[in-house]
């Protein structure tokens, strides 16, 4: 088993992601907004139970 390294080294800016991720699909946003609106009752009900997130 590999445990935590004794002398950890920082890894800064080593990772990159593929280009082309910077265009947000407006149709997907509309879809998500519709999803939220159509299920508002479920979301509101759940939010009451998850109130701690916003406190």
């Amino acid at each position, binding site marked *: 088993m590999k445990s935590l390294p004794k002398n*950890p080294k920082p890894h800064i800016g080593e990772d990159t992601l593929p280009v082309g991720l910077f265009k947000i*699909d407006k149709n997907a946003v509309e879809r998500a907004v519709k999803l939220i609106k159509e299920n508002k009752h479920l979301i509101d009900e*759940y939010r009451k139970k998850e109130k701690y997130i916003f406190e």
Partner: protein
Amino acid sequence: MNIEKKRNIFLNKSDISFLKNHYLFLDNDFLSMLFYKNDFLKDFISIFNNSEISLLIDPFVEFEFLREVFLPKQQKLKENFLSEDFFTSVENHQEVFLKLQENAILLSRIYAHQNNNNKKTGSSFVDLFLAARSMLLKNSCIITGNKKDFPLFVFDTLAVLNLEEDEGSLKSFCVLKFNEKKFSSCLLKYNKLHS
């Protein structure tokens, strides 16, 4: 007469072009706000879309967002929301995890040192790994409502987004960026303890 309540979003910068081609990691509180608040998602995208940012979900944030959901309908709803194309998931394999682990342990030591080991100011496991992820990925930022979990001695505040709620209160979210110079300076001070 019914007066439609309109949600307002205020950004402290008129020009956010400095965020162009940046990756924006969403903290769980912000992601939850997008999910719970009608139209906030649309308003947020309309403000930030011209900057050509990418919205990233860290696996630990995804875990936090989905945990403790026991009703199948609600679980499905959250999963469907996360599966939309405008969210991008990031890699979650062993090689990356080991690097994140090293970053996270270093950050936790720096936080403890800078905060004089005050346990009340410590960050959670998920926040440490989110910070570690932002360190690792070039051109990335974090948007969060809990600025104190990403302290000023390591992070810079680039922008503040205020959301006006129906009852008139304001909820603030900050766009934060890891600062390598600040981090190195803190690490140097920490390492002096051992020399």
